[in-house]
């Protein structure tokens, strides 16, 4: 049980490092480290589908982010008056954590979920669909509309990227 806490604390340290570094390429690589920590966490939480998808998606988003930040040198300047922002953000975070602590007390205890729909899906997956991977049976047969919506979202984002970059009208 302690391994969940250890990897989460490593992810928090990696996130703080990614936030505070001044070189942009290094902070993007620290974000990649946080993503790989999340892959390990998914494996420990018994979700192998998610671990495979998170790993390859992390690699691809690292490639895209490095493409945007390599070779760019920003002039270093210290902006004065940052102390006010910092204290305001700390007070806001404290209020947020206090109210979320109150809300978490209503959730079921960690390790005993109430599986109202989950037990139904597990009982009927092989009989009704014939697939032995229950997660694949859920996303493609029981809840196929969500997958249709997601395919549409990916299509729209590809159109958006190619429209923003506008490759047709520029000469190489």
């Amino acid at each position, binding site marked *: 049980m302690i391994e969940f806490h250890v990897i989460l604390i490593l992810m928090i340290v990696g996130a703080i490092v990614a936030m505070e570094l001044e070189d942009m390429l290094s902070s993007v690589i620290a974000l990649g480290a946080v993503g790989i920590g999340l892959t390990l966490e998914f494996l420990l939480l018994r979700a192998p589908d998610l671990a495979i998808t998170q790993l*390859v998606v992390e690699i691809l988003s690292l490639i895209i982010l490095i493409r945007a930040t390599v070779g760019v040198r920003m002039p270093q300047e210290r902006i004065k008056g940052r102390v006010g922002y910092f204290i305001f953000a700390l007070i806001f975070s404290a209020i947020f954590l206090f109210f979320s602590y109150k809300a978490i007390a209503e959730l079921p205890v960690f390790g005993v979920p109430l599986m109202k729909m989950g037990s139904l899906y597990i009982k009927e997956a092989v009989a*009704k669909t*014939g*697939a032995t*991977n229950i997660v694949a049976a859920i996303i*493609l047969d029981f809840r196929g509309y969500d997958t249709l919506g997601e*395919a549409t979202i990916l299509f729209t984002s590809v159109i958006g990227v*190619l429209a923003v970059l506008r*490759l047709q009208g520029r*000469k190489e």
Partner: protein
Amino acid sequence: MKEAGMTLIVKRITKITVSLIFLFGVYIVLHGHLTPGGGFAGGVIIALSFIHLVLAFGKEVTLKRISQTTVSVVESLGGIMFWGVALLGLFFGGYFFLNVLPKGRPFDLFSSGIIILCNIAIFLKVGAGLFAIFLGLALLKMPVEKKEGESK
């Protein structure tokens, strides 16, 4: 003029590993209903194999093999196939997205009706779409080797 792409060692190794990555991606897609994986992870792996080719050989050499029109056509084909499989359920069963193909025994490769066709459709769409995004970002600036990226 400097040759595009990376050094000779990288090019030799790339010729071997690209086919292995492609085969692994196709394996993960086709066994999506038996082992973890599915269409999304397999599609991203295929896009990564093509990006590997572009990074090692330079974009002119790769664009002679796979043009941009091919990538766009494959992505639309994936979308049409997904909608077609869903409408098949409407015509033959009465409900949109009904599972109408025969379900064999469990643990077979061709069991579970419609799921394997949906996986292949998503694999084509996601793989081609993500490769198109990378081509758009790679063709925008010259690769930054010794100078800042200037583009028109």
